[in-house]
C-alpha cells in the first residue's frame, strides 16, 4: 500500500514536470528577430507608433494552409509565405511579430475588435470585403488551377471532359468548373484533404482550387503536379487592415513595395512556392483597384 502511494506521488511529480516542460515549448512564436539597423520612430498617435510602444505586432495568419500559413509539425513554429511577409512588416517597425490564428470566418471581426493589427491569411480581395476593411495592395496573385498525378493525360481545363474532378462543396470552384468544364464529373467533398486522399488513391482524376492549396498538396506528395495552361480564375491576396486606418495601410504598402523591389518577395516565393512548382513568378504588379475590378 505504501509503495503504491509513493508510485502515485512519483507519477504526479513527473506529470507536473512534463507539463512545465510542455509550457516552455509554447513560447511566443517568431523569436530570434534581430532589430533592424535603422528603425523609423512613429508618432504615438499612429497605429505604427502604438505597435512600437507595445513592442509587438499582432498578425492574423492561417495555421492550416501550407505553404502560406501553417504550423510546422516538427518545431511547432508558424511558417509560410504570409508569415515571412508579416516578419518584414514587423522588422520595419523594429518589433516582434506575434502570430494569431485567423480563419476565414473570424479574420475580419478580428480587425474590427483589435485582436489583430494586420491580417495576412490568403484573403482574396473583393469588393464585398473592401466595404468592411482596408486592403493593402495585392501581395500575391493566386490562381485557380488543376492538380493531377504526374502520369496523367489531363493537360488543362479543356481536357477535363469525362474525368472525375474533386473540389470542395460550396466553393466558388463548383460553379467555375460547371461553366468551364461542363462535361467533367464533379466529386464534391467537405475538405481539400479529402480531395487529396481521393486523387492519391485514384478515385478521382484531378483536383481544382487555388494553386496555393494545390501547392501545399504537392509538398506533401511529389507524385502530383499542376497542369500547365491558362488558370481558371484569378485570386489576388491582400493584407487586411482596420477600416479607416489609411496611414497604416500606406505603411504596409510601403513595406510591400520595398519587399518586392528588395528581393524579399522573390526569395519568399522561391522558398515556399517556386521550389515545389518549378515555376518562376514576378512580384505582383496588379493594383488594389484592378484586383477589386477583377473579382467583382
Amino acid at each position: 500500500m505504501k509503495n503504491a502511494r509513493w508510485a502515485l506521488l512519483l507519477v504526479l511529480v513527473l506529470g507536473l514536470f512534463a507539463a512545465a516542460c510542455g509550457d516552455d515549448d509554447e513560447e511566443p512564436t517568431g523569436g530570434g528577430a534581430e532589430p533592424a539597423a535603422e528603425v523609423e520612430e512613429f508618432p504615438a498617435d499612429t497605429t505604427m507608433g502604438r505597435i512600437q510602444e507595445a513592442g509587438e505586432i499582432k498578425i492574423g495568419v492561417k495555421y492550416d494552409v501550407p505553404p502560406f500559413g501553417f504550423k510546422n509539425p516538427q518545431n511547432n513554429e508558424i511558417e509560410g509565405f504570409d508569415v515571412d511577409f508579416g516578419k518584414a512588416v514587423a522588422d520595419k517597425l523594429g518589433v516582434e511579430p506575434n502570430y494569431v490564428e485567423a480563419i476565414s470566418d473570424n479574420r475580419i471581426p478580428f480587425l474590427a475588435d483589435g485582436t489583430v493589427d494586420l491580417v495576412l491569411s490568403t484573403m482574396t480581395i473583393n469588393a464585398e470585403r473592401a466595404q468592411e476593411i482596408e486592403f493593402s495592395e495585392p501581395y500575391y496573385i493566386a490562381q485557380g488551377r488543376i492538380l493531377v498525378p504526374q502520369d496523367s493525360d489531363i493537360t488543362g481545363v479543356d481536357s477535363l471532359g469525362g474525368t472525375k474532378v474533386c473540389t470542395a462543396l460550396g466553393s466558388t470552384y463548383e460553379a467555375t468548373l460547371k461553366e468551364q468544364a461542363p462535361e467533367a464529373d464533379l466529386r464534391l467533398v467537405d475538405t481539400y484533404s479529402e480531395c487529396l486522399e481521393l486523387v492519391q488513391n485514384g478515385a478521382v482524376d484531378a483536383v481544382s482550387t487555388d494553386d496555393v492549396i494545390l501547392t501545399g498538396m504537392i509538398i506533401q506528395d511529389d507524385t502530383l503536379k499542376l497542369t500547365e495552361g491558362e488558370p481558371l480564375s484569378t485570386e489576388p491576396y491582400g493584407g487586411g487592415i482596420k477600416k479607416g486606418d489609411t496611414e497604416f495601410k500606406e505603411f504596409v504598402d510601403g513595406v510591400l513595395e520595398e519587399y518586392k523591389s528588395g528581393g524579399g518577395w522573390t526569395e519568399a516565393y522561391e522558398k515556399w512556392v517556386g521550389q515545389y512548382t518549378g515555376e518562376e513568378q514576378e512580384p505582383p504588379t496588379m493594383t488594389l483597384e484592378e484586383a477589386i475590378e477583377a473579382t467583382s
Partner: protein
Amino acid sequence: MGDVISVLTDNFDEFLAGFWVTVRLVVFAFAIAMVVGTLVAALRITPNKWLQRLGGVYVETFRNVPLLVLLFISFAGLRRAGVDIGPWTAGIASLGLYTAAYVAEALRSGVFSVSKGQIEAALSLGYTYGQALRRVVFPQAFRTVISPLGSLIIAMIKNSAIIGVSLLALDDLLKTARVVQSRTFETNETFFWAAAGYLLLTVSATFAIRSLEKRYAIHR
C-alpha cells in the same frame, strides 16, 4: 410556402437523381444484409463451436465498428491496398455488411424463440440438422423477426445518408440537398425536401412490413 415549392420544382431533376441513388443504395444493401445476415445467423446456431465462433466474430466486428469507419476502410483503405473498388461497391457493401450483423442477431433471437423441443423432435423424426432448420425453425423464426427486421430496414435507410457525407462522394439524397443548399442558400426549404424523401422511403418500408406482419401473423 411558395419558396418551399419552388426549391423543389426548380431543382427537381437533381432531387430525383439523388433520391434514385439513395433508393439503389438501400435496395442493394438490403439484399446483401438479408443474405449475409441469414448465413451468419445460421453459423451462430450450428452445434459446431468453431462455426458459432466464426459467426460471433462477424457480428462483433461489424456491429462494433462505426459505419463511417467501415466506409473509409472499404474505400480509401482497400484502394490504397491496390484493390480497384468503386464508391458504389464500397458504399453498398459497407452498408449491407454492417446491417447484416444486426440482421443476424435479430434472426438468432427469432430462432431462440422456437422452443428447443421442436428441434429435438425434428431430429428424432430423422430430419438432418439443415432440414430441421429450414422446415421447422426458420419459418417460425421469420414470423417473430418481421417486426425487428422492419426497424432495421428503417435504420438502414437513414444510415445510408452517411454514405453521402463520406469521402465516397456519391450524390445521394442528402448530398444533393447540400449541393442545392450551397447554391441557393435556402437551407430550411432544401433540407425539408431531403427529409421528405427519406420519409417517403421509411413510410413505404413501414407499410410493407405491416402487410407482411398481417400475412404471416402467428395465430396463437
